[in-house]
């Protein structure tokens, strides 16, 4: 694990703070009075056993589901109040690869660019190149392997301008060299004052970027 050493992090404007978060699944309490705070340039790695509620916590942070108790604030404002502005700054890649298997890789990437327009105007081919699928652009996604599907869903990392990345097991089903690519992409994001919250079961090397482990 990268040694956690706090650079003199100049206090950037963005800050995500969670207070007394409680979450229930069925009638069982998953976690209670959970607190954390994350500021620009930092990454938070959530670790915990299976079923500890990692994915539920991520979904609460994105605002997809409401916690039973507690508040999450983005720049000191409750995210429920500023949902639209918060979601503009948010990139969420969940457990499921949100890729339509009926469409080809090219069409899926076109949809990504259509829904999340980014000022980096690279073409579909460049994007496909960065996820290593440029020869399979016109292949229907139903014939891709799980790892390749995961690559298509991670394509957003390369064109995203959002500040806060929330990634649920980004390295799942990926081969070794693409893991390196994702780690490098994460490091660039953190270097440019971005923030990231991610869950992972295997180690992730974030270079000298500030990151801390959050145990659930």
């Amino acid at each position, binding site marked *: 694990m990268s040694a956690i050493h706090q650079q003199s992090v100049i206090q950037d404007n963005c800050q995500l703070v969670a207070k007394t978060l409680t979450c229930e699944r069925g009638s069982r309490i998953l976690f209670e009075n959970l607190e954390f705070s994350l500021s620009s340039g930092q990454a938070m790695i959530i670790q915990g056993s299976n079923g500890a509620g990692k994915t539920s916590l991520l979904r609460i942070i*994105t605002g*997809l589901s409401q916690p039973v108790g507690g508040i999450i604030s983005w720049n000191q404002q409750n995210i429920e109040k500023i949902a639209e502005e918060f979601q503009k700054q948010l990139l*969420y890649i969940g457990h*499921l690869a949100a*890729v339509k298997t009926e469409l080809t890789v090219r069409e899926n990437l076109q949809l990504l660019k*259509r*829904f999340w327009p980014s000022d980096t105007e690279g073409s579909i081919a460049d994007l496909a190149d960065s996820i290593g699928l440029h020869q399979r652009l016109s292949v229907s996604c139903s014939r891709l392997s799980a790892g390749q599907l995961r690559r298509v869903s991670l394509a957003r990392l390369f064109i995203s301008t959002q500040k806060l990345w929330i990634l649920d097991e980004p390295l799942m089903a990926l081969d070794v060299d693409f893991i390196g690519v994702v780690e490098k992409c994460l490091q660039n994001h953190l270097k440019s004052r971005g923030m990231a919250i991610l869950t992972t079961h295997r180690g992730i090397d974030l270079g000298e970027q500030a990151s801390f482990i959050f145990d659930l």
Partner: protein
Amino acid sequence: MQLFYSILYRDLMLAIRRRRELANPLVFFVIVVSLFPLGVSPDQDLLSKMAPGVIWVTALLATLMSMDAMFRSDYDDGSLEQLLLLPGPKILLIGAKITAHWLSIGLPLIVLAPIMSLLLYFPTHAMGSLIITLLISTPILSLLGSVGIALTLSLRSGGILSSLLILPFYIPVLIFSTMAINASVNSLPVSGYYALLGAFLIVSALLIPFAVVAALKVSYN
């Protein structure tokens, strides 16, 4: 509004890519309509009296049966989460999905219904009102059905349960439409019924999307 068009474009592209699935409600409609003469009796005046009701009930069931297509595939592969997290009013997302569903399921039914009505000796001079009532009411069916589907999205046995929840709300649509057709069969004034159906469409188009957004929040909790 750009969000509305891109989601509409995406859904219609997916619908075209799944053409075979789109045929199911139409085949269902054809089979069930032809069951009635076999089940009841091929006698002409009995069938022509029953025709509006049979056509309408079958069209209603065909739409209800294919309501699943609206959110189910997006929910299962995780893309509905991404769409819900898009900045922008959620109402546009819901509106686009319902319009896409109506275009891919409702319209083909409207095209097929008059043809099938000939099998039931449907009085041809009332064909116009059959098409008009279907045009006004099938969007209402999609709107109301979307609430049922959104509520039962996270349940395994969601499909059957959502039909059970939504059928009572279809009753006014069924009653006014069949009365409109019967009125035009006896060449009575029909505009009153169309106005009521239109009002029902406008009210549900304005109120239902909010219920669907709340229902999706519940399904994701």
